[in-house]
């Protein structure tokens, strides 16, 4: 058991910033490769004509999930040291809804907007300005809404823990769901492409 490397003191805070930069490069590279520097490509997810957002996102989730599971099973990674953002259910449900609204209105999410800026998209730059403005509004409102932001605190909680199910079983269910989703998404894309070519 010697990973996560940072948690086992293999390198310090200063080096972690270099690591952050390098991981960021790879992250941005694949986001752009996928076409996520384009708001039209991203927003097509919500009109069902191009479901790359779903496909890329769930392939990434499944890949990292299975990889982490096996590395933990092999005794290489201590899963308990991998950070879990605590669950605050209601703020996260409302936050997700606002993000969904913002996604289809703005055309980007925060990470993809950075990629879009790097490839010259002016609308992504303006989106970034909106993002800063929204965070400022949240910051100013924070003293008033603090109670809600910190409500329904469930702590660090995973789906297997919540439903008392084996980790591997939930993992298997997620994989099946993703595969089903991929087949369904491709079928819908084909139907809509046929409709578009007929009209």
């Amino acid at each position, binding site marked *: 058991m010697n990973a996560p490397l940072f948690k086992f003191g293999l390198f310090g805070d200063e080096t972690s910033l270099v690591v952050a930069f390098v991981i960021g490069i790879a992250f941005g590279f694949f986001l752009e490769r996928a076409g996520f520097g384009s708001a039209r490509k991203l927003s097509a997810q919500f009109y069902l004509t191009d479901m790359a957002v779903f496909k890329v996102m769930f392939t990434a989730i499944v890949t990292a999930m299975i990889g982490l599971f096996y590395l933990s099973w092999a005794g290489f990674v201590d899963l308990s*040291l991998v950070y879990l953002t605590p669950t605050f259910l209601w703020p996260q449900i409302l936050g997700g809804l606002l993000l969904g609204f913002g996604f289809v209105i703005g055309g980007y999410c925060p990470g993809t907007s950075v990629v879009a800026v790097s490839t010259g998209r002016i609308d992504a730059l303006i989106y970034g300005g909106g993002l800063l403005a929204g965070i400022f509004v949240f910051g100013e409102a924070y003293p008033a809404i603090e109670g809600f932001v910190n409500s329904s605190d469930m702590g660090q909680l995973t789906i297997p823990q919540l439903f008392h199910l084996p980790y591997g079983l939930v993992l298997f269910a997620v994989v099946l769901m993703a595969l089903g989703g991929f087949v369904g998404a491709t079928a819908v894309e084909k139907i809509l492409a046929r409709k578009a070519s007929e009209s």
Partner: protein
Amino acid sequence: MESATGRGPAPYMNPYLAGLGLGLVLLASFVVMGRGLGASGAFSSVVALGVDAVAPAHAQANEFYQGYLDRGAGHPLKSYLVFQVLGVLAGGFLSGALARRVKRTVERGPRIGVGPRLLLAFTGGALMGIGAKLARGCTSGQALSGGAVLNVGSWAFMLMIFAGGYALAYFVRRQWT
């Protein structure tokens, strides 16, 4: 699309292949750092620093800003996510340049002007800024990273993103289709 003067932009990568690459990056982040990917936190650092520069006493009194300003002796911008986002900027440009996709343009559908599109971009960004702070993360930090470690809040959050997007898609269709 071939242009008269040279080769046009390269086609995008197969989504499953790009997803595999992204998943391996996320896995590497978990293994090396013990944390996932993130983006919105970097924007929060910028906002907190801005407020601190203009009204230091006001920023000192606000717990939210303080969370991004307390970096021990270090500068608030010397934060993990700020460096990650700078990397995303570099990586995105690298991929875009290699594929001839770097172009100064405004992304919009055929039925909307530049002005209204930019207004909507700003509005969407603002909604996301509020949403991401409420949810303690965005598509990267919550949905993607938390999704892979089967985090309860992340999955609830992710389902709501899709629900919100589909619920509103009809009303902004003129922007995209």
